[in-house]
């Protein structure tokens, strides 16, 4: 197992793992097989949704170790060789800092393109080295055998590549060419400084000819050369580009345009955030560039059906816990984590359990009715006696009781009796019982792989620290708290452009405002069997907080609830594309804001933003605002 996985303090990012390490623990999410074909693909998903993992899985080394055990996917793999080009926010920001002082646009673009070309060429060399190494040692995969060439042929190839890339190589070997590229890469800041000081681009290019090369030419000519060398002129290669949204805009435009026309031997598999700069550029490029369906296939990650999400999260959680020394399978998670508070009463099957479920419901309903007049009224209107919840199966009241039970549990947990003045008193510090146990604990992760691993890590560490099982309430409560607080910390410092006319606000302030709004309606207003727990992004909200909304989508704070998002439909591109979309707050923040782990009908986001719901332990009951029409597909059937 890699050190990067073992160590608890490191980021859970596949970027830092080798292809073999990624393959070792890979659990294919729905839609993975669609990436294995020859289409250009753009994967769209928020931070942590597994885009990097999927791209790294498309490298030959990863597929070679994973496919044999997953024969159902083997025939879908179209035989391309993946070239993974890493990128992260550090690289992007450094590039921006080194080039922002260059006065001429041509100079700036040349430097940025050159930095990208270096990354692409280095990635190609790494891929090539793997192919040659495996080819020489033998492999079951036919594709490798063509690369089993001798040292002399390797030297010839390297000499040709060096010539194409205008590199001076002392020793014609892969290592020699790689070192030359790295050396050239370290000179980029120096060349940038020369351009900033006023030196002409022509003079810089004369000294360093690689600067003047177009990145696509550098790649395509190299691929053609390699294909000739391996005797297969139609060998396909896939350029796997990660984190496109952080690439400087001009460079990004330059990268996306070849989606429409480039070498027939080169396909693109790109990863992009569902909002922000990358999506916006893609929307613009679409006008005269590649078009969805014709030129690329869009694959949206992270918005799959709840049952699929749970299954995927359970497999990943079990795998992560096993690596931490807690041996468990996905099917064992219910016993390892214990059931959630809602599990027995909602999924009772046998008669004995059913009667216990009825008793449990009666207890909750009676407690709540005694301290919450509005709840008692709601029951009364439906002719329901909280002391007797045994109904015949076809009695509509049985359906109603089942429907509102999770809300009643939630409200009962957080609410005390109203005071003499009619003000509702929310309870103070309460445990995390509402969010503990299977499957709620998994739902908090939203099926986001990085979040699943993060939570597994916290659970394992807490269990070890307290010398208790994961099932222990204290272990889960503490892990849940750390889990959401880490995310809240990110939102507090996440850099964001401020609206000119408004009071400076952190991303966390913005999210807190929405979360507190929903929570206050849910816990402090009169009981509603169908409260608002999601938002429609309306024009007014977008105009006042567009950048905040986009960033929330990008980070996974907002979960898009668009029906059919897993289909091949176009992703929600660009800021304008978000208006009219329905979103909910991610469940990871549900314990922070005292929200249930489900969502119901939406309310216009601007309504929530315009209301002052400063977090308070004791607030007057607010009047309900106008709400958006309930959509036809809305239901509480998936409550908890």
């Amino acid at each position: 197992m890699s050190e990067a996985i073992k160590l608890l303090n490191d980021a859970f990012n596949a970027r830092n793992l080798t292809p073999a390490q990624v393959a070792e623990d890979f659990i294919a999410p729905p839609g993975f097989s669609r990436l294995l074909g020859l289409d250009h693909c753009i994967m769209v998903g928020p931070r942590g949704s597994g885009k990097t993992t999927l791209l790294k899985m498309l490298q030959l080394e990863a597929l070679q170790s994973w496919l044999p055990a997953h024969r159902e996917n083997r025939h879908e793999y179209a035989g391309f060789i993946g070239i993974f080009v890493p990128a992260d926010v550090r690289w992007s920001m450094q590039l921006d800092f080194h080039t922002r002082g260059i006065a001429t646009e041509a100079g700036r673009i040349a430097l940025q393109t050159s930095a990208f070309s270096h990354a692409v060429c280095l990635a190609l060399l790494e891929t090539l080295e793997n192919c040659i190494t495996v080819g020489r040692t033998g492999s079951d995969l036919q594709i490798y055998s063509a690369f089993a060439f001798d040292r002399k042929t390797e030297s010839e190839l390297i000499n040709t590549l060096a010539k194409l890339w205008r590199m001076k190589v002392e020793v014609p070997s892969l290592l020699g060419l790689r070192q030359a590229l790295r050396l050239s890469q370290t000179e980029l800041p120096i060349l940038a400084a020369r351009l900033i000081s006023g030196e002409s681009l022509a003079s810089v290019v004369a000294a360093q000819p690689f600067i003047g090369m177009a990145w696509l030419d550098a790649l395509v000519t190299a691929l053609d050369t390699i294909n000739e060398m391996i005797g297969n002129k139609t060998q396909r290669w896939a350029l796997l580009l990660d984190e496109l949204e952080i690439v400087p805009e001009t460079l990004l435009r330059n990268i996306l345009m070849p989606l429409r026309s480039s070498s027939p031997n080169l396909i693109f598999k790109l990863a992009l955030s569902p909002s922000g700069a990358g999506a916006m550029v893609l929307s613009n490029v679409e006008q005269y560039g590649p078009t969805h369906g014709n030129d690329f296939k869009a694959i949206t990650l992270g918005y799959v059906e709840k049952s699929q999400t749970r299954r995927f999260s359970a497999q990943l959680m079990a795998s992560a816990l096993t690596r931490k020394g807690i041996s468990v399978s996905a099917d064992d998670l219910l016993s390892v984590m214990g059931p959630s508070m809602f599990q027995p009463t909602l999924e009772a099957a046998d008669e004995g359990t059913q009667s216990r479920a009825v008793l449990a419901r009666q207890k909750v309903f009676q407690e709540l009715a005694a301290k919450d007049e509005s709840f008692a009224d709601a029951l009364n209107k439906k002719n329901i006696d909280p002391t007797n919840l045994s109904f015949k199966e076809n009695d509509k009241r049985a359906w109603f009781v089942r429907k509102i039970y999770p809300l009643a549990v939630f409200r009962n947990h957080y609410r005390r009796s109203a005071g003499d003045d009619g003000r509702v008193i929310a309870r103070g510090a309460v445990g995390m019982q509402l969010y503990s146990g299977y499957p709620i604990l998994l739902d908090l992760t939203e099926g986001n792989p990085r979040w699943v691993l993060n939570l597994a890590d916290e659970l394992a560490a807490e269990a070890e620290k307290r010398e208790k099982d994961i099932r222990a309430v204290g272990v889960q409560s503490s892990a849940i708290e750390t889990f959401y607080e880490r995310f809240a910390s990110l939102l507090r410092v996440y850099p964001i452009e401020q609206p000119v006319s408004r009071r400076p606000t952190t991303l966390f302030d913005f999210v807190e405002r929405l979360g507190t709004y929903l929570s206050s309606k849910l816990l402090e207003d009169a009981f509603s069997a169908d409260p608002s727990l999601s938002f429609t992004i309306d024009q007014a909200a977008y105009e006042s907080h567009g950048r905040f909304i986009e960033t929330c989508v990008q980070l996974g704070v907002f979960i898009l609830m668009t029906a059919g998002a897993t289909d091949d439909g176009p992703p929600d591109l660009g800021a304008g594309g978000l208006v009219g979309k329905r979103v909910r707050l991610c469940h990871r923040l549900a314990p922070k804001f005292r929200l249930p782990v489900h969502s119901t009908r939406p309310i216009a986001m601007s309504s929530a933003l315009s209301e002052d719901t400063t977090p308070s332990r004791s607030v007057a009951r607010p009047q309900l605002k106008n709400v958006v029409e309930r959509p036809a597909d809305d239901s509480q059937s998936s409550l908890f």
Partner: protein
Amino acid sequence: MTIQIFRNIRVPDDLPTGADLVVASLSVESRCTNVVGNASLSARTRLAVVEHESPLPSFVESESCLQRLDFAKVNEAVLEATLDASIASLEGTQLDAIVDISCMSREVMARLFAWFLKLTPSIELNLYVCYSLAEFSAPPTEFPPNEYIAPVVSRFAGWPAASQPTSLVVGLGYEPHKAEGAAEFLDASEQWLFVPNSPIREFREAVEQNNAGLVERARRSNRLVEYQLDDPAGTYGQLELLVSDLSRRSNPVLLPFGPKMFFTLSLLQSYEHPQAGVWAVSGERTAPAADRRASGCVIGFEAKFQ
């Protein structure tokens, strides 16, 4: 040119009276005069950098004090130009400079050090850096929003190499959420924490308390390094060991929250290892100004570039 000598000094005893240049700052923090007010300095050029003018009494008082000591007020916008002018008549190839970083913003510190380091290798540089610790004050509970988390200036940005993973060295401060959030933002392959042991004991307690989760995770993975704030030479050595090791397998980003002394040491590390960047968050300069008085504890070091 590299740093040949790095040693702790006693302030003001070990400061050279005949330095060529003294750079301090003028701010609302009354500790801004603590070092230069207690040293007998006869430098030809004495500059007091102003980042924000203020009508507060502490600012006015410090302004008078620095005037008496023959310091010229310099607006930070013209810092580099003023420095260029100040050494125009420098005779010889050696520059002895004293810098009091106590009240400088990180951005100004970075610009100042970028200017100094640009002089090398044509000029042999002796830097004397002083830091007057403030009395303890409670950490802020409200934070201005950040508009960026980015390299502090391009000179210390590090190299844009995409092929290497990013590693992170965080110097902890006592503000809650800041380090945790920034670490999440950078999403590094490897993350190390430097925790200051300050002569001001309350500071250490607040650091641990407000970064409990981060500290605990770093301890679990043996990536927590404690450093003595009053031993900059020792801390520089600790940083050197780590950054030189990280540089072999990654592109390190140094994120020095907390005491400004650690920030300075990070800048010098970036000078020695240009692939390592020094980053900062943008909130600092928009934080409300408040008087911070000197605690009486002053630390310093000398770095000789040859």
